[in-house]
Every structure is written in C-alpha cells, then in structure tokens.
C-alpha cells in the first residue's frame, strides 16, 4: 500500500547531540510537512516543502532544519536537542491543489506513524 513511512519509530538522544529523523512516501505527493506534537496538544507545523521550495514557519526555532533530497524523502535535523524538544514528530504529505484532479479531494494531508523523540 502507498503510504508515509517514518523512521525510526522511537529515537533516544542526548542533550545537545544532533539527531536526524527520516520520512519517505510512496504516494508521489509533491508537498511534505514536518509537525511537532507534544503530549495532549495539537500538531504544530514546523515547516513544509512545496516541491523543492522550503517554507519555514515564523516561530520554528533555528535548531530545526530540514532536507528534501528528492520527491520521496524528507529529513528533519535537530542540531542541538534540548529537553523541550522531546515530542512526537509527524511527517505528512499532500498533493497540490492543481495536481489533485477533478473530483479528487483537494490537498488532504496524510500522516506517517510518527517518531517519538526522547532527550536525556
């Protein structure tokens, strides 16, 4: 089945030690998103890629970076994780409005299972 796959499912890192989370998709969607979700809170958008164009949210800390080497893969890099960065990180994908086609629901976001990050 086509899907959004996140690896690893669980990641433990040390305070200040860089960590990279990965996301891959077989949906051939051109938009990819990274969200941070803390316990009992709504997902918070960090940034998204529209094709190769990177779109950062204004309140995303500089500590968070992203790379999208090709359509299928997207990475979240946390340069110096702090204790406050412990959270679930969600990757999502969507197909742009213009590509969704007639009769197809527009720009729906499909999520991966998430990576739960612990910072020691």
């Amino acid at each position: 089945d086509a899907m959004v796959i996140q690896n690893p499912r669980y990641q433990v890192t040390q305070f200040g030690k860089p960590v990279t989370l990965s996301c891959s998709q077989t949906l051939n969607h051109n938009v990819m998103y990274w969200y941070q979700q803390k316990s009992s809170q709504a997902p918070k958008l960090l940034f998204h890629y529209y094709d190769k164009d990177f779109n950062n949210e204004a309140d995303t800390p500089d500590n968070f970076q992203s790379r999208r080497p090709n359509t299928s893969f997207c990475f979240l890099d946390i340069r110096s994780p702090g204790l406050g960065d412990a959270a679930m990180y969600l990757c999502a994908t969507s197909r742009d409005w213009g590509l969704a086609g007639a009769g197809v629901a527009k720009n729906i976001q499909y999520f991966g299972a998430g990576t739960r990050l612990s910072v020691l």
Partner: protein
Amino acid sequence: QKEVEQDPGPLSVPEGAIVSLNCTYSNSAFQYFMWYRQYSRKGPELLMYTYSSGNKEDGRFTAQVDKSSKYISLFIRDSQPSDSATYLCAARGGRAAGNKLTFGGGTRVLVKP
C-alpha cells in the same frame, strides 16, 4: 484565541452510544474541514473530509459543518471500544491560503465495553 477550539475531554461513553464531538473556529476563510483520529503513540489518520457547509456520512461516522455559526461536528454511531482515541478537527482555507492546516487540540474519547 486559537483559530480552532476543541474541548479536550476526556469524553467517556458506554459501548453502543453515540459519540458527539464538536469544534468551533474563528477564521471565516476556512473552507475545508477534516476530522482525524489518532490512537495513542500513532500518527493522525484521516476520517472525514468536508467542503463548506453540509453533512457527510461514511459508515458509522457523520460530519457536519455549519459555516454560519463556525461550528463543526463529528458523530460516531454504535460506538465501539476500538473507537477509543483522540479525535482532532482541522480546517484550512482555499487554494489562495496555501497549504497550512490548522488543528484543534483534540478530544480524547473513551468507549467503555
């Protein structure tokens, strides 16, 4: 004020009851409305998707949107213990608004056998 407000619950119901979930929103530009289900330690899964005002039914699930009152609802009939999860409502504008999805904080639902 958050753009999308949702009661955090928890909402506890007996098996077989109707679950009623609600969200309010403040942004008049929102046109598309979604409900996601999120099991513990998993990613959100799309349940329902509606455009503008009206009702949409899919099996045991019914989504309603009332744009005049900025109110969206999800009803789950014949609830099952497997429906126990957090339900997130979400909204977005039209194409000109870009790709951003605005989520409510989620309502935790517990269906007791």
